[in-house]
């Protein structure tokens, strides 16, 4: 199953990113994303070790860059309605959602490719099916949880002073650093 999914998610990721780019007047970005998507699929078929990480970085990079380039979803966007502002308040639009999904699919694809590299080491007597099921369940929960968190953050509007924002940033950086350091130490 993983073998099939690891090819589906890069297609979904690049598809969403390209769609978002074309829809927001970034055709060259869209073309570039499609070209990279083809390379990504070829790389996965040929089991290039570096391609999943590159796919993740490029998927996230394109999503972030595109989100910086386009104005917040609304009148400037060519995407279907449902985005834009409601009664003067900015809501997460389809533009953001499309790029967010593109990035999320890149994350899923990266994870599945790395998992597939590990599965190659299994012997034919191993219960790979059970391992795949548990892995996909956890990945799905991260996918859903991550998506919900993003929507919540995009909907959340908290006004805070500069000092508090800076404090929050410093605290976030410290927290992430600790987490990364702990995981590195575990390994």
């Amino acid at each position, binding site marked *: 199953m993983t073998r099939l999914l690891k090819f589906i998610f890069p297609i979904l990721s690049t598809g969403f990113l390209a769609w978002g780019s074309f829809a927001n007047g970034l055709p060259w970005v869209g073309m570039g994303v499609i070209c990279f998507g083809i390379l990504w699929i070829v790389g996965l078929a040929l089991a290039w070790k570096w391609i999943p990480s590159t796919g993740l970085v490029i998927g996230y990079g394109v999503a972030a860059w595109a989100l910086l380039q386009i104005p917040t979803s609304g009148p400037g966007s060519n995407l279907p309605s449902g985005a834009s502002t409601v009664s003067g308040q900015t809501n997460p639009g389809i533009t953001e959602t499309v790029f967010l999904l593109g990035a999320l699919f890149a994350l899923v694809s990266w994870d599945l490719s790395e998992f597939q590299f590990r599965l190659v080491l299994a012997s034919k007597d191993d219960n790979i099916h059970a*391992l795949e099921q548990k892995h996909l369940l956890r990945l799905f929960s991260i996918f859903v949880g991550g998506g919900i968190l993003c929507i919540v953050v995009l909907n959340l509007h908290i006004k805070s002073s500069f000092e508090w924002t800076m404090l929050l940033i410093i605290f976030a950086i410290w927290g992430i650093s600790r987490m990364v350091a702990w995981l590195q130490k575990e390994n």
Partner: protein
Amino acid sequence: MNRIFVLAVLIFLLFIVGFAAIRPAVVALILPLLLYLLVGLIYSPDEVKIRAERSLSAERLKTGDEVLVSLDLTNLGSTLEEVYLEDQIPDGLEVTQGSSRRLVALPAGGSVKWTYSLKGRRGYYGLRKVQATAREHLGLAERVVDLATDGQLFILPSVLRLRRVAIQPRRTRIFSGNIPAKQGGSGVEFFNVREYQPGDSPRWINWRATARHVQNIYTNEFEQERAADVGLILDGRQRTNMFGDRSIFEHSVMAAAAMADTFLNAGNRVGLLFYGRQVTWTAPGYGKIQSERILHELSKITPGDTLNFNELYVPRHLFPSRSQLVVFSPLVQEDFDILTALRLRGYHLLVISPDPVAFESAGMARTPVNEQASRIVHIQRALLLRRLRGSGIHVVNWDTSQPFEKIAKRELEQRLVLPRGGVL
């Protein structure tokens, strides 16, 4: 690339860019990545406590035989979501059936058992650890532990059965064997004619001699056959045995195993002296136990650099003068002095020399330069062998492209008739 590093870089970059540009959508992209890291951290495996037990269907194998390895691993700690278990197989062994690795989930108290087959080339192998890599499902946090197990494997050299090896040391032991002792008595080969003595079998009476001398009766006397001391000296010098990646050493080992087996089966007292990376002695002894000792020693040895061969010392208390020494060596020019010195000390020498020139030439491209070089070295070697034979040393030149049995049958089975003065 380290997965955590990739995630960390991505998170920090998006964080900086998102806050610098004041774009919540960019900052929001971080959240799935953070959640991914967090889940990896929460489910990271605790201390890995796995008990590993190994059993082997045999500890001693002949080259080419297979051994069944069974592994039983029990998780004594908390649940491990994903464990990659890999039996650490030393170089020289290969898996022929099944797999030496497993990827499993091990609940607390759970166990996994599996078997696989191994075979390999001659050697001694310690199978002492299984590597366990425990991960959570996402594979971010992992713990690698070496699990100690007991297990050793001796892959013994294959032993060729030779019909007999004719040697004639001047000194024999008192026990009966099949080495002609140059003394009259009971035996098979005719030795002498002497006067009849009470107790002699009438069948031994030499009627022709008796008819010539009417006064006396004469009987045939046979040559006694006794056991002898045989010292096997195996040359394990790197410089004489290794030719790039190819080694002629295995041929010497095979010949030594075959000769040891033949001499011991004939009731002789056999010891082994190995000059390789280190000098090792297998003290002389008789019988099947000694045969096992020698095979064990032969399974362990590997070529290595040594200077000791230049000062080859054979302890006299183990191998008295005039006993038989069998040297297995590809030979180099400097060996002439060492071997003749042994001969001068009274040892009866047999040298089995796998031909390094033919061996090396077989692995080289056939160019005019190579062929000319090969011819020159071949002549040098032929001269060395001739000089050795001239010194009374029995040298068997073995072209390793031919089986040893064939060479042994042609050159070792027949009793060697020494010319006058004992010089070949």
